[in-house]
């Protein structure tokens, strides 16, 4: 089932994590206590130019040495530390969360227009597929993911998320089905600047995964949410589709609607469906995708999962339930987005 919530302050005013912790707990009906997580943008202003790599270590001996060997080969570790946590009875610390502030050496990779990002992706693929006991689960600049197995309030307390201040927050309360409730399988998922929270199940996963893997991505997380992240990266970053059109590819209008559209809209929508058919996501889902510029929420084409939107001043909220938004503040306007229709909140420059 799962519960999701996201908020953006379009003026980049910082919000600490206390409110979203309450909002997510409000939706405990939708979870099972086996996974929860948060992502926040703007939390590392002192290291804003470094890639913040969050890693789960099973121990701090072999896996850490191997990861650091790879990192030192590809760039410079500016700073590293254990992510501050406080152990609670409700949450067993099965991994040690660690973070690196890392600068890749862009001269080491040729044949690409985005060497830094490609180095980071390469490092993630290598670590996550070949180093047992290490998992990089967050890798953007000035963004961080905090997740674990447990109830939202326990995970929030564990990571002390009230101590972080961000202008975009994402929260996810998990009821796992397809994969066991392990820490890596909790949401949000992150890749570079992108973070994703997802409620539902993608029935087209097999098609989407094979499509995305043909572009060199490797799915390592054993869950369908990962492909949303990679597809957003492919269509948004690599193919340059604006968010509205990327969402159109993921949850396109039905052919009946397209047939009735006037030109050139019809031509555009047909082109998107033909070109990005394998990126179409089927099955019940509500998804919020975020990057440092904003958030975008959308549901599947027949809205088999809930998504409600609300506004309060400069802030835009997206949530599975309206009640969760009310725990954060009283909204001025609440509405139900239509199936497949994206709701997008961008920061004002």
């Amino acid at each position: 089932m799962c519960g999701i919530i996201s908020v953006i302050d379009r003026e980049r005013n910082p919000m600490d994590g206390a409110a979203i912790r309450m909002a997510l707990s409000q939706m405990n009906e939708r979870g099972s206590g086996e996974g929860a997580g948060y992502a926040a943008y703007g939390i590392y202003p002192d290291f804003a130019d470094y890639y913040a790599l969050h890693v789960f270590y099973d121990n701090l001996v072999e896996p850490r040495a191997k990861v650091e060997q790879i990192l030192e080969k590809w760039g410079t570790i500016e700073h590293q530390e254990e992510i501050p946590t406080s152990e609670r009875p409700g949450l067993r610390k099965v991994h040690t969360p660690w973070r690196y502030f890392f600068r890749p050496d862009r001269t080491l990779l040729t044949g690409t227009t985005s060497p830094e990002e490609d180095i980071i992706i390469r490092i993630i693929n290598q670590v996550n597929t070949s180093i047992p006991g290490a998992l990089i689960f967050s890798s953007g600049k000035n963004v961080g993911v905090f997740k674990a197995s447990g109830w939202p309030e326990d995970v929030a307390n564990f990571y002390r998320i009230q101590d972080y201040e961000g202008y975009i927050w994402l929260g996810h309360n998990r009821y796992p089905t397809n994969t066991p409730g392990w820490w890596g399988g909790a949401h949000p998922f992150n890749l570079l600047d992108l973070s994703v929270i997802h409620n539902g199940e993608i029935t087209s996963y097999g098609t989407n995964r094979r499509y995305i893997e043909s572009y060199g991505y490797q799915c390592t997380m054993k869950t369908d949410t990962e492909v949303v992240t990679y597809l957003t990266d492919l269509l948004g970053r690599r193919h340059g589709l604006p968010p509205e059109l990327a969402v159109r590819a993921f949850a396109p209008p039905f052919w009946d609607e397209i047939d009735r559209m006037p030109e050139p809209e019809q031509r555009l929508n047909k082109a998107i469906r033909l070109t990005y058919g394998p990126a179409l996501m089927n099955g019940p889902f509500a998804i919020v995708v975020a990057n440092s510029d904003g958030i975008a929420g959308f549901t599947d084409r027949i809205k088999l999962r809930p998504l409600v939107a609300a506004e309060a001043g400069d802030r835009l909220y997206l949530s599975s339930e309206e009640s969760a938004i009310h725990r954060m503040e009283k909204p001025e306007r609440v509405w139900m987005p239509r199936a497949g229709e994206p709701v997008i909140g961008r920061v004002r420059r």
Partner: protein
Amino acid sequence: MTLGSMPVRYRITIDRDECMLCGRCIENCSYGVFRKEGDRIKIDSRKCTACHRCITMCPRDAIMMQEKPVDYRSHPLWTRDVREAIYNQARTGGIILSGMGNAKKYPIIFDRLVLDACQVTNPSIDPLREPMELRTYIGKKPERLRFRKDTTGEIGLETEIAPNLQLETPIMIGHMSYGAISLNAQLSLAQAATATGTFMGTGEGGLHKALYPYQDHMIVQVASGRFGVDIDYLERGAAIEIKIGQGAKPGIGGHLPGEKVSPEISRTRRIPEGSDAISPAPHHDIYSIEDLAQLVRGLKEATEWKKPVFVKIAAVHNSAAIAAGIARSSADAVVVDGFRGGSGATPRVFRDNVGIPIEAAVASIDEKLRTQGVRNEISVIASGGIRESADVAKVIALGADAVYIGTAALAAMGCRVCGNCYRGLCPWGIATQRPDLVSRLDPAVESEHVANLIGGWTHELAELMGAAGINSIESLRGNRDRLRGYMLDENMLNVLDIRAVGA
């Protein structure tokens, strides 16, 4: 009856109590099984092909047929079929001809694949209440879209999409030529394709003018004999297909005997009346992949790049690499015909022994095209042994965009898969040019039967997709996670890239 001849294959009996001597069996049997002597209908079972025409037409259900009424001493190696082939060949010294598809007892992979359905965690979708999209576009797709901002800041699409065929169902009717089948059979198929929003192939037999009204739903074929090919033919088709090979007979050509080349067929194929129509094994202008690319480009140029061009190959060991080569040409679709594909006439040794199953061929082609990053740019059409809607769903889940059906469409018109197509005496009016037999097939009736079949399968496909929580065919395509293998060995599971049941 000559000494040493083989035992009868089928035994026909008549229930004399029921028989009213109406003589319909005599009229209907084009093979001459029945004759009237006095007030009794006599039977020559040896001539029977098991076409069931007499059984269907007998008003009293008085006729019964038994297969293999005479036993051979059983032997696991020296089966009846191999022994009979030897007796035949010892007598004739020739190549044994056969019809229809592969008749050897290979395992049928389709029957060892099972589909998935939703329970609890994701809802199934009811096609009666929710939209269910089976529309399929066959043709070249761009790798990515490019946009440009105009002066007003409006984002416009820069990429041009090449012409695609728009199918309302992923089921098309494969190429069966005028000559191999009758004009009435072709007319029925063409009317059905038009009614169901899909397409049919002309085969290598040209396009008879009676089919012109349906030309927007017809794919014209250019095969090694180039019969019937001229600019008018190419321009009439909705798409053009270059036939390199056929699943029932990979590596060899075709042969329409001169006695079948009637005045009408002569006009349509543009060959002299009564002359053998021989399609050579290779195209004499294609000796390598670049020659094929040239022909694709030539046909595109001739039709001003307005028509999709398909390339059809037989499923052989290396078909994945061949398909990758085809994908690098301007071709819009690769058609792969599995070793169970039908044929009007084919040497038995080829039909039963050469080529690979469509399931494995589609899986390996899809995978190869994906690893080369071009899968979505070219369409993959699967054919050869598609018997029911579940086969369509399974082969699409393995990676095909659409299918061609052949035998199934003929069966919808009455064909009983007797396998004697090459004899030209088809009592159902399908694989024959004899006017009295052809006139038995009424296009008004049979087109409806074929359309019913396509419609019925389409409904079933929609239900299967809905049960799997999928409302658009592109989310089924290559979605091998929704298949499981039942009693398939590990190697086969790896080739198909699927897991075993329960895994």
